[in-house]
């Protein structure tokens, strides 16, 4: 018996397989009159793990939300697989958003569903799979993020780290090959964080997923990322782009070196006798 399957576009509906996974051009973003980032341009290639770095409040999460299409840039364009998420119609934007797996800082699980139902939710909404198949897929995803033991718990019963891991499992449920993770390792113990790094690398290696990761965790940055961009809240620009090890060892920018070497600001000089 030949069980054939129809072909689908790997990058999700409406995208161009040859284009970069994500392309940001001359982006200016912020809130109201407050500009967080001005004239930023970068690409994220397919199967690349790119990390967005920067101090607290520099706009890392906001950049991610602009990429997802939740916020509209003040100026500039953002394309997903060659299709602009800024100028496209709302229907097409919804399709593009479905092709992105997103894990928010808090996990953003639905409070009225248990963990398994949360992970199954995208499959319930967008596939015709029978319940048993959806359950198996969701349980395997939970297994991947070491959350199998918590499948029947409600989000209110989970710790911050557990919420994040369940959020990652849900982000992967539809097989989106572009995953955006907002501080996935924050609040996790070192072993779980290392396991999560390994999961990210495995998914990239096996399934060719593209990752955009917002994180502060230096160890995680060196473990997983191919490339990093660093945002600066003062100049409101990308002040560094490259491999994290190169940035740490060879950057001439003191802000970049300070970040990678985890140095405190210089203490104010004291006077006196």
């Amino acid at each position, binding site marked *: 018996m*030949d069980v054939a399957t129809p072909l689908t576009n790997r990058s999700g509906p409406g995208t161009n397989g040859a284009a970069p996974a994500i392309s940001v051009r001359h982006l200016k973003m912020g809130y109201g009159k407050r500009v967080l980032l001005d004239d930023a341009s970068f690409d994220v290639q397919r199967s690349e793990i790119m990390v967005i770095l920067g101090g607290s409040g520099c706009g890392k999460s906001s950049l991610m939300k602009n990429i997802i299409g939740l916020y509209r840039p003040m100026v500039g364009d953002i394309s997903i697989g060659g299709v602009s998420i800024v100028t496209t119609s709302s229907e097409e934007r919804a399709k593009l958003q479905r092709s992105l797996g997103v894990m928010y800082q808090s996990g953003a699980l639905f409070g009225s569903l248990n963990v398994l139902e949360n992970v199954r939710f995208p499959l319930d909404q967008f*596939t015709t*799979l029978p319940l048993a198949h959806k359950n198996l*897929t969701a*349980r*395997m995803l939970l297994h991947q993020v070491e959350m199998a033991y918590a499948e*029947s718990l409600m989000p209110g019963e989970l710790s911050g780290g557990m919420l994040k891991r369940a959020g990652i499992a849900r982000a992967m449920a539809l097989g989106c090959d572009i995953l955006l993770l907002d501080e996935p390792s924050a609040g996790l113990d070192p072993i779980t964080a290392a396991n999560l790094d390994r999961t990210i690398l495995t998914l990239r290696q*096996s399934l060719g997923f593209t990752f955009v990761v917002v994180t502060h965790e230096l160890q995680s940055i060196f473990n997983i990322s191919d490339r990093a961009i660093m945002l600066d809240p003062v100049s409101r620009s990308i002040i560094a782009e490259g491999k994290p090890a190169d940035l740490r060892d060879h950057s001439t920018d003191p802000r970049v070196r300070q970040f990678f070497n985890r140095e405190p600001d210089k203490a104010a000089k004291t006077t006196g006798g």
Partner: protein
Amino acid sequence: MNHAAAGAASIVLEGRITAYTAGPVWQAALDTLANNPDRPVVVDASRVEYIDDVGIALLFDLVRQERPQGAKVEVHDLEPRFAALVGAYDPKDFVQPPKVRRHIGIFEHMGRATAQQLAYGEAMLVFLEDCAAAAWSTFRGRGTARWSEVLDIATEAGANAVPIVLLIGFLMGVIIAFEIGLVAQQFGAVIFVVNGVGVAMLRELGPLMTAIVFAGRTGAAFAAQIGTQKVNEEVNAITTFGLSPVQFLVLPRLIAATLMVPLLAVLADVVGIFGGALVMVGFGVSFVQFYNQLLGAVTLTDFVLGVVKAAVYGLAIAAIGCERGLATGAGATSVGLSTTSAVVTSIVMIVVIDGIFTIFTS
């Protein structure tokens, strides 16, 4: 059906197997296994271009099937990168079916509801004891009352509620006067409608309608505010500062509500009676006649009773709202449940308190 090896059935997978496309493939593959229970099955994956998590679950589901020796399922020619993912799972980890939410019967439901109400009653008594202790402590000067907070809450819960209370009170006066007036007209007793409107507004409807509006508007807000503070661990922060959440969060709300509801009720009384007077003009009773009849119909006791009732309603609504807020569990759903519970319980308690007042003052 292909026969890849002697006696073996074959399933050929090809193309891209993803969440959107795996459904029919998965079912057809399982059908093939079911139709060949005693034969080995070879899954030819050499033509698979790409599989996602659902595709991996499909392959895992096929190889984990319990079948007789010699009738196993083998996956051939799957790209090593995909095979590694399928091989990463142990079938034993997925033997237990997921727990489904158990639907409880009516008796269990009633039992649980009764136990919940008893626990709630007990928690409420403890809470009221804490409130009384906090109030006593403040009264004796040992605790700090946050009067600026009381003023803010009173402004929001009281002053900002004036328009809605005026509207509801006015409409209540109009409705009662009109309904009673139509009946009284048939007996030539229109003038006594004034008695009905006056007594009903002062003793019952003014405080009652004000309390219901207050429960929906402010009781719910108290539960949601404190519930969110509980979820965000602000209540824990207050406790670890050595402060009492009851003193810090609850007492200002109790004071503000106990002061504001009577004032709002007086406004409702006034506009309700005014609304009744307007309607009575239509029945041939002038404002002067209405006023004179009203003075003879209602007493100061009616007015004071209504005000006292309103104060008790306000205290009860605030106490219930705050208690529900402090009892909030975790997550946004819990805040919603607390808010709903606060409003429903408040309205029930308003009616119960009204009944108690009626029994003891009639």
